[in-house]
């Protein structure tokens, strides 16, 4: 009986003292294994998606490849779901997330954001048949967004972006109802059914909306971008040496125009700085 009590005690203790990684651990692992493991959302074209050759492809993937190349290591991609990535405590399953993540204050509690690699305008879009022509008219309407993402926070009016150089923005819309989806494109599917059938509008990333338009989604963008969102490389907490290395690499990619070239390749526009 006594042993089992002690066993239970030590198990509880183990739970309490389980700590995130030791400093330098991630960088050591990446360098010694010669492999950078990156997580990315596979359903977010054109940033990352499964291409015709059934391989991961897109802007985020190209950025990841370049980072790995500059570190002198191989790149491996894993695809856990978004909530698992943003939950933090990766336990070395992957080293870095290059997945268009906005460095919000809440996320910064569990993740590190060493480098911003581009900015994306957030926009409202309506069905082609819609009479809405300005953002102000969207107040009181049913708007679809990805659940738990920055657009959701914006509509709930509690968006805090924890990064330097974020342009100021104000809340221009009071949604009648916010409908949340697993990812942006699922909201598009509901908007596509018809104007006001399930949704009156969606709020989403401008490049994603443009990509959907290219694929014959009957959507049009309303007004100017509501806010510009910095998107950062994310790392697990606790390895400052690794964070510094990532920051240095991404800065170099900004400076020598690599990121601009990649942005133009995938978006046709330079999103790497705020206009």
């Amino acid at each position, binding site marked *: 009986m006594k042993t089992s009590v002690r066993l239970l005690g030590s198990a509880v203790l183990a*739970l309490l003292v*389980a700590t995130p990684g030791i400093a330098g651990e991630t960088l050591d692992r990446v360098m010694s294994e010669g492999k950078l493991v990156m997580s990315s959302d596979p*359903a977010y074209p054109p940033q990352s998606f*499964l291409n015709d050759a*059934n391989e991961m492809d897109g802007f985020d993937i190209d950025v990841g490849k370049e980072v790995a190349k500059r570190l002198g290591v191989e790149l491996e991609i894993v*695809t856990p*779901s978004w909530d*698992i990535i943003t939950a933090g405590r990766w336990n070395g399953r992957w080293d870095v997330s290059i997945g268009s993540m906005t460095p919000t204050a809440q996320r910064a509690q569990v993740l590190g954001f060493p480098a911003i690699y581009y900015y994306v305008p957030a926009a409202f879009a309506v069905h082609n048949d819609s009479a809405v022509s300005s953002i102000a008219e969207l107040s009181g309407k049913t708007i679809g967004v990805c659940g738990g993402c920055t657009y959701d926070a914006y509509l709930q009016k509690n968006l805090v972006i924890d990064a330097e150089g974020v342009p100021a923005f104000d809340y221009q819309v009071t949604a009648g109802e916010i409908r949340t989806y697993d990812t942006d*494109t699922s909201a598009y599917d509901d908007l596509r059914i018809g104007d006001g059938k399930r949704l009156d509008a969606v709020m989403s990333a401008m490049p994603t909306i443009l990509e959907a338009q290219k694929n014959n989604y009957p959507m049009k963008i309303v007004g100017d971008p509501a806010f510009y969102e910095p998107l950062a490389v994310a790392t697990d907490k606790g390895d400052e040496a690794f964070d510094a290395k990532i920051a240095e690499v991404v800065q170099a990619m900004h400076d020598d125009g690599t990121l601009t070239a990649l942005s133009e390749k995938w978006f046709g526009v330079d999103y790497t700085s705020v206009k």
Partner: protein
Amino acid sequence: MMQMLALLEDRRIRLITASLASLLLFMALDIRGSMLGEMLRPAIGEPADSGLYGRFATGLVATFLLGVNLVVLDLLPRRLQLPVVWLELLALFLAFFLSFGLDFAFIQKKLWFLISQGAVTTIYVSLISIAIACVIAMVAAVAKLSSNPLFFGVSTFYISFFRGLPLLMQIYLIYLGLPQLGFVVDPIPAGIAALSICYGAYMAEIFRAGILGVPRGQSEAAAALGLKGPQIFTKVVMPQAMRLIVPPTGNQFIAMLKDSSLVSVVGVWELTFLAKTAGKSEFKHVEMLITASLIYWAMSICFELIQARIERHYTKSDLR
């Protein structure tokens, strides 16, 4: 009321009532927009503007076609009826899918990858899980039947807990929770663990019911013949229990085949994951979802056939 029911006994009146009901149903559904409406264009003019008359005309034709179909079906020999009904229902489903305006070139492009990567992963995850689940279920069932209070307590707790938690939560708990204790599990082992533990709990009850379903006289008779406890269990009770265990277990396996799709949340590239992902790059989800559904169905049919064979094996003793 009674009089009306009595009237219904007359075959002719029954026929007329059924036809009227079908006519009203088709009119309520408003099938003017379908192919039938197009075909009746010479009679009713522009289908969308044809109003109640258009509804009546299309409904009447649809009812007539349905009636002819039933009469012809009735005249067919019995062994042809089953395949004809299947083919007709299948054709209806295909017509439904076709109405989405699917891009078949896209499906063709992705089909092989969905099967070679997705379906294969789904099958091997499910097969490993069901094997482990059977072992767990066997142990849990025997423990629940045992008179030892510790075994009984542990097994009832296990069955209650893992039957009570949604499978999705179990996957998250194993994938995100175990690393907190120092065990970093990869996505596939985490998924297999969650599926086996969850289905083990369900199947423990199936196994227990199977064992209890063998009449007591069987083990008593075996004991009278001088067989020992374990021998009685493996040679006498289990072979007979299997007859009761196999059909619901096959059912569980087919359910698991589809529940394995939940493992996609931790990033396993199985069928559902690929169907959701492959469609996103060109915004063609419906194509991929329908393709994946049909692949799941085809897999289920294969396993139903295998289940039927196993059932035949264990019921051999009952055949006369």
